[in-house]
């Protein structure tokens, strides 16, 4: 496919005095799974709704599959599967009946409808018994599955899901993550979520939005480099704490340490070592510890900053400070977190 699957340039939406999003720009390639993160009211849903043509933007350009959302909405709708926040569904329809109705609206050829419906029901783990139930009587998890089934029904090029895992139990989240995994490479997926671990596991790339502006964009590695300026190591050790600070200085002058809690019954203590240097000192630390007869190490690991740390760091920073550093297309080759 030529060009980007989703292209957003300087998108701005204002409601009278209130600016919901300002100058939002990003591109998403075909087959990418992208997480959209941001605190409440950051502008995630607004951006998604503009992309679906539900609300017009005040200024800027949004294109899906090369078609402008503002001028070619009919073409855009044929490429799009959307699951809104809170997943609204008609309470009084049966699952199969609803999906059949949606299949007709989404112009799935009559010959293919039955087969496709069965495929989608299987994919979303909606068994025969559930598919004949009235939507109003379904549990939250099943409702979410019906919403996702509807979004993927017409095999759209782009799937936009606003908080698809909200209110689900861990098993259901796992099932939905597996489902999203099956879309990778075939469909472009945008997911907004508050569950950071969820995004970290399912997405190739993250776009963090705050106060209506993009404050970070890229894969985990690039975001870690940009936002996390320290590395932490965790050691479970015994003895040798007398001149421990000095020992660490010999490894890296900026390295500091802090105990975590009290020694356990065997006398082993959890200690965190923190350094502003991003290079990996693991080997050197272990080597140094082995040379010290008074130190016994039971466990050691390098603690990677997770998406939560990146998210907190990115949203804490002033957007004015961050924005010039963020370019719309600064992502590297997409890779899984």
């Amino acid at each position, binding site marked *: 496919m030529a060009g980007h699957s989703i292209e957003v340039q300087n998108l701005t939406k204002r409601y009278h005095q209130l600016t919901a999003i300002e100058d939002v720009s990003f591109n998403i390639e075909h087959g990418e799974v992208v997480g959209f993160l941001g605190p409440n009211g950051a502008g995630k849903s607004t951006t998604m709704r503009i992309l679906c043509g539900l*609300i017009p933007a005040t200024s800027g350009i949004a294109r899906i599959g090369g078609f402008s959302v503002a001028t070619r909405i*009919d073409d855009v*709708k044929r490429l799009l599967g959307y699951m*809104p926040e*809170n997943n*609204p569904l008609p309470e*009084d329809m049966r699952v199969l009946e609803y999906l059949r*109705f949606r299949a007709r609206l*989404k112009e799935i050829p009559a010959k293919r409808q039955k087969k496709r419906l069965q495929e989608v029901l299987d994919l979303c783990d909606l068994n025969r018994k559930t598919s004949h139930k009235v939507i109003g009587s379904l549990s939250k998890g099943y409702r979410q599955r019906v919403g996702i089934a509807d979004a993927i029904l017409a095999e759209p090029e782009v799937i936009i899901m606003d908080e698809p895992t909200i209110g689900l139990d861990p098993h259901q989240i796992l099932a939905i993550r597996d489902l999203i995994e099956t879309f990778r490479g075939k469909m472009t997926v945008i997911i907004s979520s508050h569950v950071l671990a969820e995004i970290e596991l399912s997405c190739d790339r993250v776009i963090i939005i705050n106060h209506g502006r993009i404050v970070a964009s890229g894969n985990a590695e690039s975001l870690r480099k940009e936002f996390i300026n320290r590395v932490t190591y965790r050691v479970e050790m015994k003895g040798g704490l007398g001149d421990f600070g000095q020992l660490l200085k010999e490894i890296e002058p900026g390295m500091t340490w802090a105990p975590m809690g009290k020694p356990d019954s065997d006398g082993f203590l959890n200690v965190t070592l923190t350094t502003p240097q991003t290079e990996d000192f693991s080997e050197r630390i272990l080597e140094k510890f082995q040379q010290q007869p008074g130190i016994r190490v039971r466990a050691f690991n390098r603690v990677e900053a997770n998406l939560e740390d990146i998210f907190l760091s990115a949203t804490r920073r002033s957007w004015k400070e961050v924005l010039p550093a963020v370019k719309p297309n600064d992502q590297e080759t997409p890779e899984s977190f």
Partner: protein
Amino acid sequence: MTKRLQSHFESVMKHFFSLLHHELRALLISPSTYAAGVLFLFLMGWIYWRILLQYSLAPLDGLPASMFFQLFWLPVFFVVPLLTMKSVAEERRLGTLETLMTTPVNALEIIVSKFFAAYLFYCLLWLLTLAFPWVISIGLDSTAASRHLLDGGALMGGYTFVALSGLLFIAVGIFASSLTRSQFVAAMLSFCILFIIIIGMRELQEETIALFPWLGETLSYVQIFKHLEDFSLGVIDTRPFFFYISNCALVLGLSVLMVEAKT
């Protein structure tokens, strides 16, 4: 180009019939539809019975059917709001209007399908009132009286008027529903608008004719009671057709704009 237009038209019709099927189904399982149906038939049955009672007490001019249709406004005030209040307002409240708008259907197709579903139901309810004169005429021995009850001209005129004016009334109901997310507010709004159109206009004309005769003259064209009178007498004028169809299109057009603007 013609081929493209044809395929576009085909897809529009496909969407329309899918939506219409969906809307009719929604109407059929909605309790408010049955409430409207029962109330309507009960009220109309009672009115018809009262009319026949009057005829049995003293000889009256005119046909029972003409007198029956004179009271068309009474059921309109509650049947139209009950049939239409849910249409857009409930979908907006639930958020399903949004999901509908992200499929290849557009606001026009949505509004027109909702309109036709409610309109078909409205016409069906009125058609059921045909049973009143029919059932009574079966029970009557006198053929003259039966003929009097089943007078083709009066019935035809009355039902044509109901079908024609129903276009505007239902469109008004859909429009009121498109303005809000509360069914109750939609019902109140449609009641008020219908009241202004049916009763308000008549009062306005009566008030203005003495003060501004030219305005009274103009207002006489939009008198719904006048249209009914003409139809009952068998006067089929194109002006009421134009009035109801064009206004129905106008109101539905406004509803489409409301759906597009407020999704």
